[in-house]
């Protein structure tokens, strides 16, 4: 039984950890495949210093100056409302390390280069598009892609076409996003000046890969959860290994007494732990694979919804994943058994017949833990005061959680002592006193429970807070009744005038957009018209008094919170927006929340947008219509405008879509949360089970003095429920601290926006109930075993020497 809990504990710990790692690895492999289209990982790129485009002439000039570079144009196209990354490559110059070279196996260069060309896609993308090879899907911008060809070296979600086709589809003739240098190219950045002035810079490999960078925080979150679950699992392992060693102390002593060398015993014990760790680790890896496979759809949906990153649907397992997973299992098992092994090392040859001095031990333990707890909290405080960045945020959380967990037994002892003092009956007094004694054996499991519960409270608070904020924000942001995209600028003009004759439409508001990069970060610049819709409903986090007037007059811009935080911009600061021709300096007159957007955003007057960005996308609009008229208007638009209309959607569907993306983002978190709680339940169960033999010696005298087994069983459950309840109550404030850290530190660092902090007391009730349920479920089997213990087994306690 003890062996079983050991294996289960280690397997579960490994499972969650390796599951999360498998997910991360899957996603990273996808990103790498996406990034490797241009060449080997780590290849240098030449990009525009202003963050915009590299003129094609510059490419030619560099080639003619001997630079071994290959042109790339990247962009996003939407097909059926789903975003895909379109990459235009030039196969004759692309680096030989690029899988593009191998892409055309079976296809030919001529077919790729010559109209209509080819679109190379992963089989996943083919399935996602619901298309077959040779099909030519139309983008929402009404371009037909070159015929699709399956190429498995291409990452999912990528459309790889010839550079010429890409310029046409993305509407960027003569423009490139980057020039990827061949590994053999040895030119220095300084040489660029002679060719292209100061318009270019060399981008280091680590700067590239927006996807990896944008999704980093997401993966860090996953990793943190995996690690938390792993640690919780180790609690189980520690407890059961400890007991296993305890049970064998007598045997070990005998072996030592008959002359077995210490090193041999230790070697055998370590070997045993290693073997167990490998077996349990392997089981865990299999379970981890299943967990990852189960969560993968949600993870990829989150990543694609949030970042437009596509992650392949088939879980691919690498040897490295196996090694790291087993390594973790092994390291964890050895760590968890270190204390026990040390005990064996120090084992005195002759047993000292000393009864278990639990109080002394507990005192010492509490003192030790208290010191560690204070240390952890100090580290958290230091990280909070002086730390910077996401890692510091997680350090604060880790310190607080660990410190609180270590303090938990102290808190429990205090509460139990209070209970003991208040108790009047003998049994009641014993109940409290005995619970206190039992604490030593359960404290690790209870700490695990505390961590799981506070993670639940914390993440629950954050997610609920996010949901509340997000839906409220969606209501404000999606303030128009209808949104549509025209197929072209001409169509847009036509539709605009056509809508003038539709009496139910009260306003036609352009939502034109240009894309730029500010300090390397992708930023969307939106142009809107001054209208009561915005003045009345567009919520601002902070603004100057005349913000809307200044936006209307072109003398000011509203920027998203992310952008403001990232660039350190305050009201009145001037933001420099790179445009195709120069740089547009405009004062910041307000900030607005832009939850969940990994890109920065700027809102300006539409006329000024088009003045600075001649190629701004002028095809998106929102419509205000008379109340209740939206469905009829949409119907008429679809019937009469036909292909001129690329897309039309009503407010409700748009909201539903946004909410769906949101829900899936947190589905993963929710699942991991639940799994962590289950692991802590198993930890509790394992501890109780391993303790149940010890418990017999505590309970037998009480039974002998005239308390029925049934009554004792009830009390045992009661004790655990009390402990769980106290733990849950303590978990609430801890969870709130955690939530605050997530909202105020991690979120800001990871996503660039801060959520308002809400508390949700109903959640606490749920947490309390789940804590009690967890404890009850964990206790029920050990207690039933206790209740069924035959009297003669109870009496063995009195007869046998231990």
């Amino acid at each position, binding site marked *: 039984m003890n062996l079983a809990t050991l294996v289960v504990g280690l397997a579960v710990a490994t499972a969650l950890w390796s599951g999360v790692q498998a997910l991360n690895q899957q996603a990273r492999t996808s990103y790498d495949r996406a990034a490797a289209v241009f060449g080997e990982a780590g290849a240098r790129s030449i990009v525009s210093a202003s963050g915009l485009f590299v003129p094609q002439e510059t*490419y030619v000039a560099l080639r003619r100056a001997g630079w071994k570079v290959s042109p790339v144009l990247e962009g996003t196209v939407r097909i059926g409302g789903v975003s895909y990354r379109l990459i235009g490559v030039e196969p004759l110059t692309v680096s030989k390390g690029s899988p593009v070279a191998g892409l055309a196996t079976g296809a030919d260069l001529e077919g790729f280069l010559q109209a209509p060309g080819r679109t190379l896609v992963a089989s996943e993308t083919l399935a996602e598009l619901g298309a077959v090879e040779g099909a030519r899907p139309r983008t929402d911008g009404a371009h037909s892609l070159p015929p699709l060809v399956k190429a498995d070296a291409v990452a999912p979600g990528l459309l790889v076409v010839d550079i010429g086709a890409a310029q046409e589809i993305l509407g960027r003739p003569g423009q490139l996003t980057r020039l990827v240098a061949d590994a053999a190219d040895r030119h220095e950045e300084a040489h660029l000046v002679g060719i292209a002035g100061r318009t270019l810079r060399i981008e280091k490999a680590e700067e590239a890969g927006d996807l990896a960078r944008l999704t980093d925080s997401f993966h860090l979150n996953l990793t943190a959860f995996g690690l938390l679950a792993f640690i919780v699992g180790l609690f189980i392992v520690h407890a059961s290994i400890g007991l296993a060693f305890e049970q064998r102390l007598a045997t070990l002593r005998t072996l030592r007494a008959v002359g077995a060398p210490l090193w041999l015993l230790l070697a055998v014990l370590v070997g045993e732990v290693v073997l167990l760790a490998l077996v349990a680790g392997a089981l865990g890896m299999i379970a981890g694979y299943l967990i990852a496979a189960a969560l993968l759809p949600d993870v990829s949906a989150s990543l694609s919804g949030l970042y437009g990153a596509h992650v392949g649907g088939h879980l691919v397992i690498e040897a490295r994943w196996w090694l790291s997973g087993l390594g973790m299992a092994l390291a964890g098992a050895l760590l968890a058994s270190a204390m026990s092994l040390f005990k064996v090392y120090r084992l005195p040859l002759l047993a000292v017949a000393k009864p278990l001095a639990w109080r002394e031990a507990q005192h010492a333990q509490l003192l030790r833990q208290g010191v560690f707890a204070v240390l952890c909290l100090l580290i958290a405080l230091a990280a909070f005061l002086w730390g910077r960045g996401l890692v510091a945020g997680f350090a604060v959380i880790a310190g607080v959680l660990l410190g609180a967990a270590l303090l938990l037994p102290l808190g429990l002892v205090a509460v139990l002592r209070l209970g003991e003092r208040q108790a009047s009956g003998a049994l009641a007094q014993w109940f409290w006193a005995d619970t206190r004694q039992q604490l030593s054996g359960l404290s690790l499991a209870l700490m695990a429970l505390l961590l799981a519960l506070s993670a639940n409270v914390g993440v629950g608070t954050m997610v609920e807070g996010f949901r509340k904020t997000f839906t409220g924000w969606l209501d404000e942001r999606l303030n128009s009744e209808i949104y549509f995209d025209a197929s072209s600028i001409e169509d847009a003009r036509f539709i605009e005038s056509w809508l003038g004759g539709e009496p139910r439409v009260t306003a036609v508001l352009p939502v034109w957009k240009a894309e730029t990069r500010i300090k390397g970060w992708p930023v969307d610049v939106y142009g809107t018209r001054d209208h009561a819709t915005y003045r009345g409903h567009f919520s601002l986090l902070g603004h100057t008094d005349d913000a809307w007037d200044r936006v209307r007059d072109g003398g000011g811009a509203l920027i998203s919170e992310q952008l403001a935080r990232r660039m350190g911009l305050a009201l009145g600061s001037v933001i420099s927006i790179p445009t195709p021709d120069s740089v547009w300096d405009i004062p910041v007159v307000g900030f607005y929340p832009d939850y969940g957007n990994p890109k920065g955003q700027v809102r300006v007057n539409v006329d000024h947008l088009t003045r600075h960005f001649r190629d701004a996308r002028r095809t998106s609009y929102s419509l205000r219509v008379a109340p209740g008229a939206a469905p009829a208007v949409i119907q008429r638009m679809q019937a009469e405008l036909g292909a001129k209309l690329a897309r039309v959607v009503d407010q409700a569907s748009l909201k539903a879509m946004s909410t769906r993306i949101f829900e899936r983002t947190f589905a993963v978190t929710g699942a991991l949360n639940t799994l962590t709680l289950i692991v802590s339940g198993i930890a509790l169960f394992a501890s109780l089970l391993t303790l149940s033999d010890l418990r017999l010696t505590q309970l037998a005298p009480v039974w002998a003095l005239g308390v029925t087994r049934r009554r004792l069983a009830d009390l045992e459950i009661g004790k655990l429920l009390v402990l769980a309840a106290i733990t849950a109550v303590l978990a609430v404030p801890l969870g709130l601290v955690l939530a605050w850290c997530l909202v105020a530190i991690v979120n800001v660092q990871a996503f660039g926006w801060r959520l308002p902090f809400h508390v949700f007391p109903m959640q606490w009730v749920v947490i309390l109930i789940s804590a009690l349920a967890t404890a009850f479920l964990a206790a029920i089997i050990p207690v039933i075993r206790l209740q069924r213990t035959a009297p003669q087994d109870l009496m063995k306690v009195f007869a046998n020497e231990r």
Partner: protein
Amino acid sequence: MSVRAIVVLFAITALAWGVERAGAGGFAGLGDSASGFADVVPGKSLSFPEDFGAHPDYRIEWWYVTANLKDADGNAYGVQWTLFRQALSPGPEREGWASQQVWMGHAAVTSAKEHRFAETLARGGIGQAGAKAHPFHAWIDDWSFVSTESANASGLGSTLLTAKGADFSYSLALKTGYAPALQGDNGYSRKSERGQASYYYSQPFFEVSGTLTLSGRSIAVTGQAWMDREWSSQPLAADQKGWDWFSLHLPGGDKLMLFQLRGADGDFYRAGSWIGADGRTSVLDAADIALTPLAQKDVAGRRLPISWKVVVKSRGLSIETKPLNAESWMATIFPYWEGPVRFSGSHAGVGYLEMTGY
């Protein structure tokens, strides 16, 4: 020189992508129909400077320069500079990336001990590679073959030839007072009994001086260079598998070009021309030419005849050629052997040999 490069160029299509398109139709599908491209017809007179530049209506074309050089100590060197053009489809050239033209450059420097080469590819339509007739300028990336005459001159009397690889480079001044030598029937060069042909002229009289860099050493060199210019739309017969090609600088200033196209069934199509020191070209009869492989050597995993017995009976020429460096292997997308040779026998001198299809 010649048809050799046709294969190389066509091979880009398939081999640049790691696909061996072996099988029927000669190398790399050379048997493809030329429909839609301009035809090579006899009797058309070449005109200069127009024909120094590119002929995009034709499927394939090249600018091919080889030079036999010596340094101050008398050490021999060879230099190769080649620019190939291929049109992927017929019709007027389209603009920008849509252009159907694809360009490829090969460059090499060979000494007795070293052989360095480089290869580069470019799309037409964007200016990365091209060839203009007047003033003459052929280029790809930073490699160029450019007229250095005054703007109103219209010949190749004075040019600069440059190329650069990872571990070599050269910059050579090429000068000549000769007009181009038309090969075959006034520039119409047949390549098989069945009528495949190309437009072909040469400039074998370049005097060279300049520097080359090899293994970090800068070396002043002088010598002579030979340029071949050829364009066509379907030059090889379907059953022709490879060729051996000689361009030889004879004593007294005469020049000799010889080639044989090897058929699948072991027969040959041989042709050649004798260009006198006065610039006059005489076409050699196929039966007048004998090319016999002598020594064989394993180079890059293939067995190659690196020494030849060359006989032109009517001219009393009987020589044996030996490579300056037997390892003159061009491990490019389509690999071949190309290197300087020296010969002795009835005549002694230097030249270039190209062998493909082995």
